[in-house]
C-alpha cells in the first residue's frame, strides 16, 4: 500500500511538467497583445512596452521563458501580473472561497442526493421514486447558468430571501444557494446512482443471507445493503470534489463569488498568461491528489481491492 502511494506520488512529477509545458505553450500561442488597452485611450508608450518586455522576458524564445518561469515556480514564486500583483497572493485570496463553495456543494449533493436515492431505491415505482426520477431528470436537463440566474432572481431579487450576490469573504450562509446551484446536476446524478445501486444490491444473495440470519430489517438495510451500495456513490463524490475544487466559472460569475474560477476567467480575458498557468498548475495538482484519495478510499471501502 505504501509503495503504491509512493508510486502514485512520483507519477505526479512528469504530469506536473507535462501540464505546465502544455498550458504555457497554449497560453502564449493565443494571438493578441497583452499591452493592448493597458494604458487607457492611447496606445502604450514604447518605453513602457520595452520595459515590460524586458522585465517579463517576452522577447526570449518560449522554451527559455518556460525555463525562467519554472525556475521561479519551483522556489514557490508564482510571479507577478503585468500590473505588479503577486500571483501567489491572488491564488491564496481566491482559493479558500472556492474550497468553501466546493464543500457546501458536496454536502448538498451528498445529503440530498443520497437520501433521495436510498429512499427511492428501497421503494421502487412508489410515489417518492417517481418524484425523484422526474425531479432529477429536470435538474439534469437544466444548465447551471439557468438554475443560477433563476434562483438568484427569484430568491434574491423578487422575494429577497437571500442576498443576490456573495460578499467578499464569502460566509457559508451566503454560499448555500450558490452551492445548491453548483451541485444540482451532480446531486441528481448521485440520487440516480444511489437508487440504481440500492435496487441492484437489494436482490443480492448476501442481503438474502442477512435476512435469513434473522436480523431486523433496519440492520439488513442500514449495514449490509447500504455499505455495499455506497461504494460507487462515494467514489463519484470524491471525483466530483476534485472537479469542484477546480472552481466554478459560471456559478462564481453569477453570484459574484471571489473564487478561483473567476480569477482564471479574468486572467484569460486580460491575457495574463502567468496567472493562467499558475492557477491551472495548482488545479491540476489538486485534481490529481483528489483522484489518489478516491482510489485509496475505494480500497478502504471494498476489501477485495488491493493495490500492490
Amino acid at each position, binding site marked *: 500500500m505504501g509503495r503504491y502511494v509512493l508510486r502514485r506520488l512520483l507519477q505526479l512529477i512528469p504530469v506536473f511538467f507535462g501540464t505546465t509545458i502544455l498550458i504555457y505553450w497554449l497560453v502564449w500561442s493565443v494571438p493578441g497583445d497583452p499591452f493592448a488597452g493597458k494604458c487607457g485611450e492611447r496606445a502604450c508608450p514604447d518605453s513602457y512596452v520595452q520595459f515590460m518586455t524586458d522585465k517579463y522576458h517576452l522577447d526570449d524564445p518560449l522554451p527559455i521563458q518556460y525555463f525562467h518561469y519554472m525556475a521561479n515556480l519551483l522556489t514557490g514564486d508564482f510571479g507577478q501580473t503585468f500590473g505588479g500583483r503577486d500571483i501567489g497572493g491572488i491564488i491564496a485570496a481566491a482559493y479558500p472561497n472556492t474550497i468553501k463553495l466546493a464543500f457546501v456543494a458536496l454536502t448538498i449533493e451528498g445529503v440530498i442526493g443520497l437520501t433521495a436515492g436510498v429512499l427511492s431505491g428501497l421503494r421502487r415505482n412508489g410515489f417518492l421514486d417517481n418524484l425523484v426520477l422526474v425531479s432529477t431528470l429536470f435538474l439534469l436537463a437544466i444548465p447551471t447558468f439557468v438554475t443560477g440566474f433563476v434562483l438568484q432572481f427569484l430568491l434574491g431579487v423578487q422575494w429577497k430571501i437571500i442576498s443576490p450576490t456573495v460578499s467578499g469573504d464569502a460566509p457559508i450562509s451566503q454560499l448555500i444557494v450558490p452551492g445548491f446551484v453548483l451541485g444540482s446536476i451532480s446531486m441528481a446524478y448521485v440520487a440516480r446512482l444511489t437508487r440504481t445501486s440500492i435496487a441492484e444490491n437489494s*436482490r*443480492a*444473495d*448476501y442481503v*438474502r*443471507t*442477512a*435476512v*435469513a*440470519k*434473522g*436480523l*431486523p430489517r433496519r*440492520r439488513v438495510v442500514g*449495514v*449490509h445493503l447500504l*455499505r*455495499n451500495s455506497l*461504494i460507487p456513490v462515494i467514489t463519484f463524490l470524491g471525483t466530483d470534489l476534485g472537479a469542484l475544487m477546480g472552481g466554478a466559472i459560471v456559478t462564481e460569475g453569477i453570484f459574484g463569488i471571489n473564487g478561483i474560477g473567476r480569477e482564471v476567467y479574468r486572467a484569460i480575458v486580460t491575457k495574463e498568461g502567468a496567472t493562467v498557468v499558475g492557477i491551472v498548475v495548482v488545479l491540476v495538482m489538486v485534481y490529481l491528489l483528489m483522484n489518489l484519495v478516491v482510489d485509496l478510499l475505494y480500497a478502504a*471501502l*471494498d*476489501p*477485495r481491492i488491493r493495490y500492490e
Partner: protein
Amino acid sequence: MSNVFVSEQSEAAAAGHPSGRLLEVEDLRVEFRTRDGVAKVINGVTYHVDAGETLAVLGESGSGKSVTAQTIMGILDTPPGFVTGGEIRFHGRDMLKMSAEERRRIRGEGIAMVFQDALSALNPVFTVGFQIAEQFRVRRGMSRGDAKKRAAEMLDQVKIPNAKQRINEYPHQFSGGMRQRVMIAMSLALDPEVLIADEPTTALDVTVQAQIMDLLAELQQERQMGLILITHDLGVVADVADRIAVMYAGRIVEEADVHELYAKPAHPYTLGLLESIPRIDEKGQQLRTIKGLPPSLLRIPSGCPFHPRCPMAQPVCAEKVPPLLQLGPTRASACHFAQDLVSRD
C-alpha cells in the same frame, strides 16, 4: 442451550396437534406471477423433518426444491413469488400465519439455512468474524469482544485451522471449501433446531464435497438437528440421508426411506434418476438418461406431470393426476403404477 420454542411445542401438543413434528410442510402452493403468465412452482408439497433426522430433497433444477426452502425461511422474493396455499408448521404452529416479527425470530434460531454459493451469500465487505459475531450481538445482546470470541469458537467447530486469526479475514480470502465451512458456522451460530442446506456442495470440488458432507452429518449428529438437505446429486445423499423426498414439477413424486428408495424405487422418475448414475461395472457404455426436459412451469402437462417423459406412460397418465399414496409406513409414491413397480423384480 435452552430454547424459546420448547415451550411452544408443548402448547402446540396441548392444542391438539396430532403429529408433534418439528417442522412440517403441508400442501404448500407457491406461484410466480411473471410477465409471461403465472408459473405454478410449488403444487402441493408435503414433507416433514424431525429432530436428529436428515431428509434429502432431490430433484432437477426448477423442480421447486429451493423455492420450498425459501418459503420455509420466509425469504421468497415477493413479488414475483406468492404463497397461495398450504401450511408450514414449526412445533405445530403455522408460520405462514405468524407476524413478520415472530417469523424473524425463528430465522437463525429455530430454522437456519446454508446457501449454495458461499462467495455470493457472504457479504464481501465485512470480515467473516463480523458476519458471525453480528448474530451474537444482535440476537443475544453480547458485547463485541464476547461475540468475537464466540465467532472464533464457531469457526473452530467447523474445523477451520487458525480460527482466531481467520475471523479477521474477508470471504474472498478463503478457498471454496473453507468459505462453505464459514457459511455453515454462521448458520449454526444460534443453535438452530432445523438446518436447511440448499445444495451446499454444488459449487465445490468433488473431494471437498465429501468433506463438507461429512462435516454437516457430524454436526447434525452432535446437535440432534433436523437437517433438510436439498440436492440434485443422488450420490451425495446416499450416505447421510435418512429419508428422501423426490420432487418433480413442484410436487413430491416419491418419498421413502433411503435404503428402500435405492433398492426399489416406486416412481418411474426416481428409477430414471437412479439409472442415470454412472456405474463402475458399466464402464465404456453409454450413460442412460431420462429423455426430454423438465416441463415449463407455465404449462405443466395435464395429468401426471412426468407422463411426456415416462417410459411407462399409459393413457390414464395424461388424464388423472396421481395422488401421493402411502405404500408402506415410510414410503409414498405419486404414480398410478406404483404397486406394479414395487412388486416387480
